[in-house]
């Protein structure tokens, strides 16, 4: 789906006037609010990469906040040209640090907060607040506001009007003034979400202050150092704060495909004899692989035992209730195609040994491409009974994943994810 631009050009108002302007706007027609009874969404939208590309005149503006195909293509070329590691993510600070050196601060049109993916706008958010940080830390805050009542083909008399606020400025200004404004703009009766659409290492003071409020969080642990990501998740669990992770959401097709293999009852005995699991990931960010193995071990009641890290990757072991060991290997693979999200799972192999005769054993291979399946078939796996499946990695944009969370969830942390976080943290701490 294409991003949709607001019909009305947002009006620039001084930050102090935003609240009163909106209050007046909603009561001017009638004596009660006409706004949609849905939710409010605050989006942290740094778009550092896009800002760098536009300010370097590598791509033409305006800055929209959407990860377009042009940005992806250009950035991948830059990674290769500048000989950055192949697994460098497009959200990596390595890339933006490189580009930041030459940026010119000529004013480029900045339309962040005015473009929204239609999958989100069709949910009729009541209030969208975009925090659009700029490179100059202290640059003063500018605020924009716009209200809209989209046409609806729904014949019911449901009100679907909403408003949109953009808070743009340096991170220091956002922290000192912008956060207070966001709090003033919160609507008490409606669910409120924060989507941190950037690295979790970025502006920790701003992120942490959001964690203190009652907002439901949407983060992406593919962007940020593993320790910081796991700490954030753990803190949210400890404080019973609802948290949703797009990196976990993207594992859905892997979890679903693996579960599907064991739907036919005669196959379930295979699960009781798993001896080895190999997980191939793109790049070296292991958090998604940790979630995957944590989910499997939680469901099969295995206990984590030990882990070691070497140049080839990570080896861990778990123990089943009957004392049998399960060996786990997480293998980072440098692929020729720099990734959008770091550390995405690209292959999974489970070996189940029920007998000494290889023909009676089973090898289950899930790969994101046929070539990955072929890679995992090597080493005599074909002697076993093979069950294979290609699970293409999710191509959906983060906006689509976010809209699904907004539309279908009450924001609670998934119990499966909660358990996976606890185990992933236990494993990661054992590495240190």
């Amino acid at each position, binding site marked *: 789906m294409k991003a949709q631009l607001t019909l009305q050009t947002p009006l620039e108002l001084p930050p102090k006037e935003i609240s009163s302007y909106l209050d007046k706007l909603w009561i001017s027609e009638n004596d009660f609010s006409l706004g949609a009874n849905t939710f409010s969404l605050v989006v942290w939208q740094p778009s550092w990469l896009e800002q760098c590309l536009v300010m370097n005149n590598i791509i033409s503006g305006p800055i929209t906040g959407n990860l377009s195909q042009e940005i992806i293509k250009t950035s991948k070329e830059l990674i290769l040209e500048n000989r950055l590691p192949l697994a460098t993510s497009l959200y990596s600070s390595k890339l933006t640090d490189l580009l930041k050196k030459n940026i010119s601060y000529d004013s480029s049109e900045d339309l962040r907060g005015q473009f929204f993916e239609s999958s989100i706008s069709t949910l009729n958010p009541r209030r969208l607040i975009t925090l659009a940080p700029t490179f100059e830390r202290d640059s003063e805050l500018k605020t924009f506001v716009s209200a809209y009542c989209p046409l609806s083909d729904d014949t019911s008399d449901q009100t679907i009007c909403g408003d949109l606020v953009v808070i743009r400025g340096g991170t220091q200004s956002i922290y000192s003034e912008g956060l207070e404004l966001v709090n003033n703009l919160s609507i008490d009766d409606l669910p409120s979400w924060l989507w941190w659409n950037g690295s979790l290492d970025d502006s920790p003071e701003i992120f942490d202050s959001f964690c203190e409020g009652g907002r439901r969080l949407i983060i992406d642990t593919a962007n940020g150092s593993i320790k910081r990501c796991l700490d954030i998740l753990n803190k949210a669990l400890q404080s019973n704060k609802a948290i949703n992770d797009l990196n976990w959401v993207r594992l859905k097709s892997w*979890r679903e495909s693996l*579960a599907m293999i064991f*739907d*036919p009852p005669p196959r*379930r*005995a*295979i*699960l009781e004899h798993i001896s080895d699991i190999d997980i191939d990931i793109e790049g070296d960010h292991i958090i998604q692989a940790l979630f995957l193995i944590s989910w499997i071990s939680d469901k099969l009641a295995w206990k984590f035992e030990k882990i070691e890290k070497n140049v080839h990757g990570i080896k861990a072991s778990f123990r089943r209730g009957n004392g049998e060991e399960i060996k786990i290997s997480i293998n980072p693979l440098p692929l020729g195609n720099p990734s959008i999200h770091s550390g995405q799972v690209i292959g999974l192999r489970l070996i189940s040994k029920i007998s000494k005769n290889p023909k009676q054993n089973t090898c289950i291979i899930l790969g994101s491409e046929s070539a990955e399946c072929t890679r995992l078939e090597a080493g005599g796996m074909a002697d076993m009974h093979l069950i294979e499946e290609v699970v293409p990695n999710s191509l959906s944009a983060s906006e689509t994943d976010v809209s699904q969370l907004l539309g279908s969830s009450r924001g609670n942390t998934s119990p499966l994810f909660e358990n996976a976080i606890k185990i992933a943290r236990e494993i990661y701490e054992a590495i240190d």
Partner: protein
Amino acid sequence: MNSSLSNPLRLGLRQERVIPPQCLVIFGASGDLTHRKLIPALFELFLQRRLPSEFAIVGCARRPWDDDEFRAKMEYKLEKQISQNEKEWVNFSKYLFYEPVDLQKEDDVIKLASRLAEIDKDQATHGNRTFYLSVSPNFYGSGCKALKNAGLINDPKKSRIVIEKPFGRDYSSAKKLNRIVQSCAHESQIYRIDHYLGKETVQNILVLRFANTIFEPIWNRNYISNVQITSSEIVGVEDRAGYYETSGALRDMLQNHLTQMLAVTAMEPPGRFDPEAIRNEKAKVLQASKLADEDNPWECCIRGQYEEGGNNANPLKAYREEEGVNINSTTETYIAAKVFIDNWRWQGVPFYLRTGKRLPKRLGEIVLTFKDVPVHLFESTIINPAPNQLILRIQPNEGATFKFEVKSPGSGMRSRPVEMEFSYDESFGEPSDEGYVRLLADSMLGDPTLFTRSDEVEAAWKLYTPLIELMENAPWKLPIFKYESKTWGPPEADQLLSKDNIFWRRP
């Protein structure tokens, strides 16, 4: 290899939609449906953790029970189900409340409104209410009016009404009832329930047809010679004689369950998976349906009534000997009808529908029989080569079978039919939810996809109007044929098809 009971990797994986805070009000809470279907379905939703914590179930009936008595009655009736989940029942029963209400008494309904306001506050249900009318159909209209007068269904965003079948007794009464109900609530608030649509396999017809490319090109008059839809029961009238005597198989099964299966089987692909788009297509196909011979309806319909049967060890009574049944009853316990659909896709393809009580098996199935090959090249091991058939099993052993010809082993080139089988049990290994579990959840979620809209209900009644008029005005033209209990209906029903050189599938 041994199989374990459930797939551990599947647990918790299903991404169920979240039911918002809700107060479900059941009218007719002392009746059979409440303890046989509704409360078990709600308990199942609770066990699946699909109910919000801000929830309440308010039972309403004329009996002067209180909350504790209602809880105790439900506990007693659901003893079997609770025995394995005692702890969970204790928590679930906290959601159960009771208020004595006679829907005909204004004071009672006003009292209910204030009780609901209290419960809303205590249980934090945000004013979201679903009213389930599990009462006699005679009270649907007045019940809706009472709710409207008490201001309980004024907010179309927060309140809805679920209405059980039968919705009307014929086309004109259904139309009248629709008018009354729609004068009390917006159509989007009205959920007419047909529990057959809650069955996994009925919904699977949509997936089978519209998520696969191989079926849709042949799903039409060019390839399909006829369609048979069967719903049979082993049981007789049991303790429902009072209701059944006034309805019969046509009103109890044919007009709703079987006709809905026909609609799902024959509808055009909707433009998108959207409740209104799907219901538009269902309504269109029902509006295009007609009895095969509307001028002489007796030529395309057979009615039957079960006689004695069984054996010495287990003798079975005839319908007229059942308790509560008139000894001269002319209520049909079996009906078979031939229907055509007047549209481009189905012109000339007969749809045979049959349903009955005291038949040899309990089953529901849809059989699509394909046309014969134009030239028979191979000798068949049976006298007539069997046509290809796609059999969609609704119950039991939900799944599908495809019947086709293969070479019979041996030196010659002789063919014989074989079956390719898909079974829900074998593929998924988990029982599917009862229809009511799905439909109750959908109604509270505000998803009307699997509920029938007013125009669908009216079209379904209109389809059978010639039969209903004949039954009322000239019943001798549509006689009741007797059939022995535990047989596949009267022989005349076979003749309905054999005239077309077609035979009922013997499941």
